[in-house]
């Protein structure tokens, strides 16, 4: 069996995942990065996007928003404000959120919070992407 690294994902509401995996790809603040077993100690801020890990030859996808990853002694802990397994993502809701955000950005009303709407759009897109990747 291949060497593994322990992956743990926690959010304020639950412990989403605690498993030994073979590879982790995470959406870093400055782009994607990959973590293999026995990685050097590492601390990173995560952006909005999809994290994936390989286990038993299968790829699993998880949507993540606003978090941090810490790697030390062959263990990676991810702290995320929101984390959802691809299977849990409500595609319909994400699509609606996207439409809503796009519409708001198009209308360009003065009172909308531009940054907030853009962040919402980004989240919706990342959710949809995560879902589609795992399908």
């Amino acid at each position, binding site marked *: 069996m291949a060497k593994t690294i322990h992956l743990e994902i926690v959010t*304020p509401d639950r412990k989403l995942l605690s498993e030994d995996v073979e590879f982790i790809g995470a959406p870093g603040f400055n782009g994607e990065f990959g973590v293999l077993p026995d990685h050097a100690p590492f601390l990173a801020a995560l952006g909005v996007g999809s994290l994936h890990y390989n286990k038993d030859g299968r790829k699993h996808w998880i949507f993540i928003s606003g978090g941090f990853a810490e790697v030390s002694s062959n263990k990676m802990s991810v702290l995320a404000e929101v984390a959802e397994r691809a299977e849990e993502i409500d595609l319909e809701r994400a699509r609606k959120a996207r439409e809503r955000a796009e519409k708001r950005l198009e209308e360009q009303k003065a009172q909308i919070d531009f940054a907030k709407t853009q962040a919402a759009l980004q989240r919706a897109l990342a959710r949809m992407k995560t879902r589609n990747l795992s399908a």
Partner: protein
Amino acid sequence: MASLKDIQRKIGGVKKTKQITKAMNMVASAKLRKAQQRIEQFRPYADKFYEMLTDLSGRTDATAHPLLEVREEIKKVVIVLVTADRGLCGSFNVNLTNKARRLAAEKEAAGKEVEIICVGKKGRDVMRKQPWPIRADHVNVMNTFDFTLGTELGTSLMNSYLNHEFDEVIIIFGKFISFSKQEVSVLRVLPIASETAEVEDIQGPASEYIYEPSVEGILAELLPRFVNVQIYRGLLDTNASEHAARMRAMDNATKNCDELSKSLTLVYNKARQSAITTELMDIVGGAEALKSA
């Protein structure tokens, strides 16, 4: 003395009250279990957060970030008062609001402006009658809130703080220690308390970690979230404390109902006895009168 019927009615009333307090006790205990579970689930996240933050701030110049910096002149203080939405939980809400009032008066006496933010209806109802302006309130949320509320509160506080609208934020909440112990807790949220963030400089393995994007970059991401985490923790704790306090209050009430109905039954029996005695006396007296006639 009250008539037999009156006493009986009273006993019935007490028994009904007892049913209600007992039911409330059970509801509170179910809710407490849920609230405790939420605290448990939040703990790994929060603990990891503290760990990272202490680790990081030990490695950088902690004053570098505006959220850490203690302002020289504190002109305005915001007090975030977290209470329950509902009453009937003993002195729980009163303790919290009293603390808030004392603290506000203290700050005012020291020449600072005070504004209040209320989470929970009971606190707001009291604070509305106080001289300090209410900056914002969130009522009827204690049953349903999630992390979003923590984020919302934290973000708006931070934005206004960074805009110099106020210089200090203090949160008052009911800290949940155990079922039988809750206490009023006062915590400075902003600027981020130095004792939580600034530990002794960590040396040695400092260079071991790879940071992305950088120590400062991560800290800048971490600190605002830390505020949210602290507020959310306050909310969760208050929620659990409320239910624990209500459980105890209702337990006491149920016991008191028992006692009351016992002593009322005694009064009732005595009254009944004396009524019978009087009646007997009447009959005997009547019979005597007939005999002697």
